[in-house]
Every structure is written in structure tokens, then in C-alpha cells.
């Protein structure tokens, strides 16, 4: 049997997705038995020039993790798209933007000013900032361009499949590898995880209580039997795809939404804001005075980081408009 050619690449990411590949433990040996890994910068010595020399579509499946933050990320996304029969957005950053896309609340100038001028530990009297090209005696040298906006993989190239999660859990990764290596694939564009919301499968007791205040996770020890939302702790379960095996819930921590939205939801953050509004007694706002409503809403610290922690780049709003 011919072995499949596979590649792994990382763009704007933390490295957790690389570890997630190895989290399938000894089953990685089954993958190696059935596939040649042609490229994996974190683990193997392959240069971009080698990739450029490959015939188009030479790679059967490319697992691309990380968001598109720089021109290098975009160039590699386009190159790997050209060289791959199937391109997979692996993990939340490639799928929805994830944590790197929270930088879309700023732009390049604001980020550079903070990072290279204003941080308390920085001394940069000449205000030197990274430049895409620079002339030295020997010639011109280049670094990638830093973009204003972080994008998802499918905002720059056509994507065939998505593997959700920050990072994807071993069961999801193993299942996806099996699908690709056996050719048992769903229609193009599918997210390779169950379609139900995490909340629908949650083992905790839910009473749909109206709550009067919001607690951050460190402010209250949650009862491990009861629904987090009933206890006033924001849990993204109602707006988030299942498939993770409730790892956070089992650890007595609420879901933060890393598997992204369910198929019937258009915007994960908006769906969750609506779910929270319905338990926060804000739906009865006609009877509440404005001050009380404001007081309730102000209990939600960092709304973007709470409701759009993983999905900002792929949401309706995508980024903050900076004038």
C-alpha cells in the first residue's frame, strides 16, 4: 500500500497544537506506518525551498495550525494550499483565530508601540521598530510583514476541513487521522467534531435559574454537581461545539468555548450574550431601572475576552475599528 504524504505547519500559534499531535501517544506510530511526514518544522529539517520544489498536490493532507498574523504565515498558507490535495485547519487559531486574534482589538501601530516602546522593561531611545526590509552593507535583508489584522486560515486560502479545539483533544485528533488515512471523509468544509452543543451533553444538573450576579472563576468555588451558569459563573457550553470530552467541566472549570460554535449558530459570542441575557434577569429589563441593568452587565469583566476568546477573527465583528 502506498503511504500517504502528510505535512504539518504552524503559523501564529503557541505550540499547543504541535503537542496535541503527540498527545495521541503510541498511536502516532500507526500514523507513521501509513504516512510519510514530508514537512514538520517543529520536529524535522525541511526548508521552504524543498517545499517549493514539490509538485503541486504532492502532499495528500496538510495539517495547518496557527492564525495568519504575518506575510510569512500567508505565503506559507498559499504555498501549502498549492502543494496539498487536502488542507486542514488544525486547532482553534487556524479555525477561528483564537487567542492571537484578540490582538484585533488593536492594530499594528498600537501593538508595536506597546511592545517596542512602552513596556516597563524596554529601553528604546531611538524608537527603533521592526521593518520588513533593511539595507546593510552586504545587501537588503527582509523579515515578514506584521499585519494589522489577524485572520483565520480560510480567510486567506480555501480550506477543506477543520479540526477544532485549543488544542484539539486526542480523541478528535485520532479520529481525524483515521478519517484521512482511510479516506472515510465527510463533505468538504466539515468540522471534524460532533454537532451538538457541549451544554446538551453536560452531566451537571441544570435548573435554568435566573441569576442576579456574575462570579469570575476565582471568586467562588463551584459546586461540581451543578450547572455553572445556574451558579452565576459564565460557561460557554450553550454556544460551543461538543467533542472535547468535557475536560474542563470535569476539572470543575467552566467551558471557555475553544471548540467554536455549533453548526446552527452564526456567531458564537452573540449566541452566548443572548444566553447570558436570558439567565441574568435582563430580559425583564422593563421592570429594572437602567442603573440596575448596568450594574448587572458590569459584572461581566472583559466581555470580548469572555464571549469571543477564540472566535473574534471569524465573528461578525472581526476586529475593533481604530480611528
Amino acid at each position: 500500500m502506498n503511504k500517504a504524504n502528510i505535512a504539518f505547519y504552524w503559523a501564529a500559534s503557541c505550540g499547543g497544537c504541535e503537542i496535541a499531535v503527540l498527545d495521541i501517544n503510541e498511536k502516532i506510530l500507526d500514523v507513521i506506518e501509513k504516512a510519510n511526514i514530508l514537512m514538520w518544522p517543529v520536529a524535522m529539517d525541511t526548508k521552504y525551498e524543498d517545499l517549493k520544489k514539490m509538485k503541486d498536490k504532492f502532499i495528500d493532507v496538510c495539517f495547518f495550525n496557527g492564525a495568519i498574523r504575518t506575510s510569512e504565515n500567508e505565503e506559507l498558507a498559499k504555498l501549502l494550499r498549492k502543494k496539498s490535495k487536502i488542507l486542514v485547519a488544525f486547532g482553534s487559531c487556524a479555525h477561528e483565530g483564537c487567542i492571537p486574534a484578540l490582538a484585533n482589538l488593536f492594530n499594528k501601530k498600537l501593538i508595536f508601540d506597546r511592545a517596542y516602546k512602552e513596556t516597563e522593561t524596554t529601553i528604546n531611545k531611538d524608537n527603533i521598530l521592526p521593518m520588513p526590509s533593511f539595507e546593510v552593507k552586504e545587501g537588503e535583508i527582509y523579515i515578514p510583514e506584521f499585519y494589522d489584522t489577524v485572520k483565520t486560515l480560510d480567510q486567506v486560502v480555501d480550506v477543506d476541513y477543520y479540526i477544532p479545539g485549543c488544542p484539539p483533544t486526542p480523541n478528535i485528533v485520532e479520529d481525524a487521522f483515521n478519517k484521512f488515512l482511510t479516506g472515510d471523509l465527510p463533505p468538504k468544509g466539515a468540522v471534524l467534531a460532533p454537532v451538538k452543543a457541549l451544554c446538551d451533553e453536560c452531566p451537571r444538573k441544570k435548573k435554568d435559574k435566573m441569576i442576579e450576579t456574575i462570579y469570575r472563576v476565582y471568586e467562588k468555588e463551584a459546586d461540581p454537581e451543578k450547572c455553572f451558569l445556574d451558579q452565576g459563573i459564565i460557561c460557554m457550553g450553550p454556544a460551543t461545539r461538543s467533542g472535547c470530552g468535557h475536560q474542563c467541566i470535569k476539572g470543575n472549570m467552566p467551558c471557555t468555548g475553544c471548540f467554536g460554535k455549533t453548526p446552527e449558530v452564526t456567531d458564537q459570542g452573540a449566541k452566548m450574550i443572548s444566553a447570558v441575557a436570558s439567565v441574568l434577569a435582563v430580559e425583564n429589563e422593563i421592570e429594572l431601572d437602567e442603573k440596575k441593568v448596568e450594574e448587572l452587565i458590569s459584572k461581566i469583566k472583559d466581555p470580548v475576552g469572555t464571549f469571543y476568546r477564540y472566535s473574534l477573527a471569524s465573528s461578525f465583528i472581526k476586529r475593533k475599528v481604530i480611528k
Partner: protein
Amino acid sequence: MKRITIDPITRLEGHGKIEIFLNDSGNVECLPPDT
């Protein structure tokens, strides 16, 4: 002048690149020690 590009640096897990400029005799010119 010859330019050698190592991209990406896989010994650094794929982070960054190195560009080396060789002079006509195939050597890297070193800066004087006081610069």
C-alpha cells in the same frame, strides 16, 4: 558576494531565518571588535 539563506531554522523549531553573506573569497567578514 554570495548569499546563503537558511529558512526556516529547524533547529529552532522552525522559528526565524538566517542570512549569511560571503565575500568573494568565501568568508564572512567580521566587524572590528570595537563595533
